[in-house]
């Protein structure tokens, strides 16, 4: 018996990375966790007319979900959730950047969720960190991010939508999904997105939605950090591959 999509407990969904898909942006990247697919583009650093008093660059992050990225059409206006996620992503990325080297300039980051199946903010953070490095913005390290969680009684990594909405009470009524209760156990799902800064061994983002006890949280975070390190290595390999055959040897 395994998870809904046949993965092991510490197994990530398939990761797909594409670098510089947008030619006119300074740097851009597509990052996908399975069916969750996110496009990030960086414009700038560019000059601004605002006061020269600022001692650091101004990072503007705009997160947007495309109307057809979710099963039911989403209104294109930015709502409460979009504004919150933009801010969350900005705060997760900012500690890795050396913004004080570009005082008074503006860096624009645009994020479009092309397809959503849980974990869009973590995929966004990965895409943004790739795009920023390709734009030549001074940064200390690549930030990587993944969601961990407790589904039923199990600690798992990289939840998909089915697991995020897990509820053993409801699942009992569905014939073909009843067998999964055996694997996951009774209860509901807890979702914990984590962003990790490898150079300082620090976590720059942690959110928690649900219930979990102290020891389980520690296990979950350790699992998350382990996965983040794997994701960072994958991103690194992808950049090296990109420069080896296309642009620069």
């Amino acid at each position, binding site marked *: 018996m395994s998870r809904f999509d046949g993965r092991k407990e510490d197994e990530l969904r398939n990761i797909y990375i594409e670098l510089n898909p947008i030619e006119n942006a300074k740097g851009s990247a597509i990052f996908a966790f399975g069916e969750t697919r996110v496009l990030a583009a960086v414009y700038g650093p560019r000059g601004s007319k605002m006061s020269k*008093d600022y001692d650091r660059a101004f990072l503007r992050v705009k997160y947007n979900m495309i109307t057809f990225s979710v099963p039911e059409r989403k209104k294109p206006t930015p709502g409460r959730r979009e504004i919150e996620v933009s801010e969350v992503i900005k705060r997760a990325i900012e500690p890795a950047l*050396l913004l004080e080297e570009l*005082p008074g300039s503006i860096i624009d980051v645009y994020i479009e969720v092309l397809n959503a199946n849980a974990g869009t903010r973590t995929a966004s953070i990965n895409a943004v960190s790739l795009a920023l490095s390709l734009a030549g913005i001074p940064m*200390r*390290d690549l930030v990587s991010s993944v969601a961990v969680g407790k589904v039923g009684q199990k600690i798992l990594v990289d939840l998909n939508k089915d697991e995020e909405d897990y509820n053993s009470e409801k699942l009992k009524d569905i014939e073909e999904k009843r067998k999964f209760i055996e694997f996951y156990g009774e209860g509901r799902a807890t979702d914990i997105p984590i962003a990790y800064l490898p*150079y300082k061994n620090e976590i720059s983002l942690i959110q928690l939605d649900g219930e979990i006890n102290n020891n389980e949280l520690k296990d979950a975070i350790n699992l998350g950090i382990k996965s983040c390190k794997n994701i960072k290595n994958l991103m690194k390999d992808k950049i090296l591959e990109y420069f080896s055959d296309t642009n620069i040897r």
Partner: protein
Amino acid sequence: MILLPGDKLNNKNIYSYDINDEFFSKYILLSNDNIKYNKIFGYYIPKIGDVVISKVIDVLSNGWLLDINSPYLGFLQLKNVVQKDIDHNKIYTYGDYILTEITKITKNMMINLNLKNRKKLNNGLIISIDPIKLPRLIGKNSSMINMIKEKLNIKIITGKNGRLYLSGDYANIIKAYNVIKFIMKNSYKKGLTEKINEII
């Protein structure tokens, strides 16, 4: 060898930051011997004396605000251009490109510019390329760019900020544009000048 942000470097340089006397890369860098490091793409950082092609983005009472394709804005003072009291929208206005020289950079990155040439650069094509790759386009003793100019019989003005101004025959400008794009894509290859010679 390609180095990524966070990779360890052997010595301190302008592309590194340090934690506890160890040096790490800030950018994606290229290095052949692990001693000398080079950026392979990036943005233009203004230096005094550089000749840049700037675009007028605002007309103020005492001069013009210019976009110089860098993280900072440039400023051209009215008194450096004309002494008479006339409407300076008539001299340069929004969207005009002009050739300027950087004369002064203040501590809070206010960049003062002076005119290099009074003429507007409005009768040709402006293209932007990566400023870090500009030396490759110019070539040794400007061999590459001179070849393009002579063979295609066009004028090219280069700004240090990665902007190029092409003027001349329409068909030749398009040709030159494609050649420049080709150079930018293959900027790492050896013997590029000979290859371009064949293409043209």
